[in-house]
């Protein structure tokens, strides 16, 4: 089915609006097998919506999403659920199940596939050790710190050895040291398993560290696609403004931006 020339994920001309508000407009992006692609952009530019469209959590108004050549938008609900076996997802807030222990969270996909509880627990313990959290299997999510939750979320995303891992703001809300730990884990995962990764973030350090390719989403459109090396050299005004974190610039054309600018003046 797939070969090196066929993108693992091919997003073609996706548009999505909520009521009158256009979130995504004609967005296209190809992600090759075994590569790590990060979509960057300001909050509210539709990064999460894009990833949710790929996962089938939201239905785009138009466009196509191919995974290994199969159009996922044409799948039935059951078929889509079946394809989710190949996918792992780290949510921004980790989204751990409150009623389950840490190991049950991590091994959830394995347990759902009928794996023996003892074997599943052993595998969960192995992955937890890999993310640097040995011995916390019996804890409940409420007993974990933000950084620990994120790492447990990552462990859950990869425990069933998916082909594709989606990362929604993997370092948001974490201290710099914990962000670095998470970034290193992602790089390690990418290098050791060759997993295809699609991440979204507005953390430039994270984007530079974990990506092979970077796409910038701006005003609902895929504005620019670059490699991490070009982050510092590319002279596109919007990209420069975003990377340098300046309030002034072309991205400020939104009403919100103008209001802030006027308030500062």
């Amino acid at each position, binding site marked *: 089915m797939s070969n090196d020339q066929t993108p693992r994920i091919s997003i073609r001309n996706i548009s999505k609006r909520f009521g009158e508000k256009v979130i995504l407009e004609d967005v296209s992006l190809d992600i090759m097998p075994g590569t790590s692609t990060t979509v960057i952009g300001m909050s509210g530019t539709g990064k999460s919506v894009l990833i*949710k469209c790929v996962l089938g*959590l939201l239905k785009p108004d138009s466009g196509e999403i191919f995974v290994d050549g199969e159009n996922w938008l044409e799948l039935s609900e059951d078929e889509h*659920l*079946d394809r*989710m*076996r190949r996918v792992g997802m780290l949510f921004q*807030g980790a*989204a*751990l*199940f409150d009623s389950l222990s840490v190991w049950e969270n991590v091994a959830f996909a394995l347990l759902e596939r009928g794996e023996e509880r003892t074997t599943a627990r052993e595998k969960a313990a192995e992955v937890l050790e890999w993310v640097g959290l040995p011995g916390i299997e019996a804890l409940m999510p409420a007993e974990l710190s933000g950084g620990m939750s994120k790492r447990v979320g990552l462990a859950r995303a990869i425990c069933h050895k998916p082909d594709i891992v989606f990362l929604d703001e993997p370092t948001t809300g974490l201290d710099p040291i914990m962000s670095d730990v998470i970034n290193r884990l992602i790089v390690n995962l990418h290098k050791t398993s060759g997993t295809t990764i699609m991440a979204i973030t507005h953390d430039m350090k994270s984007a530079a560290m974990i990506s092979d390719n970077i796409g910038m989403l701006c005003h609902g459109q895929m504005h620019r696609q670059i490699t991490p090396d070009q982050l510092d050299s590319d002279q596109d005004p919007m990209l420069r403004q975003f990377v340098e974190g300046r309030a002034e610039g072309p991205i400020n054309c939104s009403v919100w931006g103008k209001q802030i600018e006027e308030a500062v003046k």
Partner: protein
Amino acid sequence: MNMLQKIGMISEQFLAQLGLYAITLGKTSKRILSSPRYPRLILAQAEEVGVQSLPVVLLTALFTGMVLALQSYIVFHRFAAESMIGVVVSLSMVRELGPVLVGLMVAGRVGASFAAELGTMRVSEQIDALWTLSTDPMRYLIMPRVIAAIVMMPLLVVISDFIGIYGGYAISVFMLDQNPAVYLEKTTQFMELKDFYSGLVKAGFFGMLIGVIGCTEGFNCKGGAEGVGRATTRAVVISCMSILVSDYFLTAWMFG
């Protein structure tokens, strides 16, 4: 916005909500017919709906039976017809008050809990996480709750009927000095099997309403903590209203 527009908008919202409940019911029914059925989750929910609701249900039934006996005595005493207290208490409990009061109690306790739990899972992306872990959220979260509510409601009503009748018995015999044998004889004499069954049918139907409405409100909840609060309130209010309205139609259908 003129009056007609307002009416149109309200009607549209009402029908959309009704459609949402119908979709949940349809999808849940479809999933009940195929595996996996998650028996462990159904049992856990049955414990939550049934066992955990017992104290509230018992207390409500006991005092309802007691009040019925007391009120009936006041009226029947004028006509020297105190022996009929048992009939009033038992028929009222079995036909109407048992299922309706248990339904309202369970809607308040369990319907709210369903909506709050699923609503929190929705806003914290746990429902999305289930999907990405190749697990059907509707099958995993809604189906066990709806089954538990449908199965446990009739059981709660059976217990509530007995406790309510006993409450009436206790007041009649120990407080109003009525003959216990007469109370029990009249209780059974006027009651038909249909009275008992009709109560159970109502209970199962109310259970379905509580499960579907509570789960739908939580599952489709939007807007963070405020949204969860709104979903919880709506679940309780709509469940209670639906129980009272559908009780009339069920009674008209079964006894009309």
